[in-house]
């Protein structure tokens, strides 16, 4: 299945892209997607505990299962306001 992956703030700078498509095997969860990027970008993995994940623009559990067409985003600590 294919999902959209979005990166913001410093995560975007680590990955060098704000948006990518990712091909995953059936049954993959949000955390699997993050781990894949963490292997490619070890610095990203360090952020794991301070990052929130969203699935289709709602905050999501790391164990949430993915489906084709989903939009996943990795959100570093926010600083709006």
């Amino acid at each position, binding site marked *: 299945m294919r999902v959209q992956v*979005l990166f*913001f*703030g*410093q995560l975007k*700078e680590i990955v060098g892209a704000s948006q990518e498509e990712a091909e995953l095997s059936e049954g993959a969860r949000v955390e699997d997607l993050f781990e894949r990027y963490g292997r490619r970008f070890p610095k990203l993995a360090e952020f794991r*505990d*301070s*990052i*929130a994940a*969203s699935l289709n*623009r*709602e*905050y999501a559990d790391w164990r949430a299962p993915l489906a084709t067409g989903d939009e996943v*985003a990795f*959100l*570093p*600590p*926010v*600083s*709006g*306001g």
Partner: protein
Amino acid sequence: MPQQASVARDVFELVREAIDARAIVENLKTPEDGAVVVFDGFVRNKFKGQPTLYLEYEAYEPMALSKIREIGAHMREHFAIHRVAMVHRLGRLEIGETSVLIAVSSAHRAAAFDACRYAIDALKRGVPIWKKEYFAGGAVWVEGEKPGQQAISAPSSSTP
């Protein structure tokens, strides 16, 4: 018969131009209200002691807008308020420029104060917006709090 002007028109926006606080507040006032409480957050000239040159805000725009609307819905549900405006600016901002404006009108001031305070607290912890500070020597993404839904739906004890 209610006047046209009294129809509730809440404002939830992400903008890239200067925020016109006066227009937003005036638009919010209706003759049924008696009080408006406004929070105006603007760019400070220093960050951790270092002089700031300017800064940039970016957002996960569709999600940020939807979370701002959720904050508005939560305000209506929990506070006896009349109208709400929440506007956040994105892109490059200079020192002193308003980054966020929240205005709340109500017949009684306590509700407007409580709702406005909840709104800025929830926005700062629950809305996916990020700030990058630019200094003479470089730039840094400001790290606030790990975001999450609980900032919006179950705010901490600092707000009622």
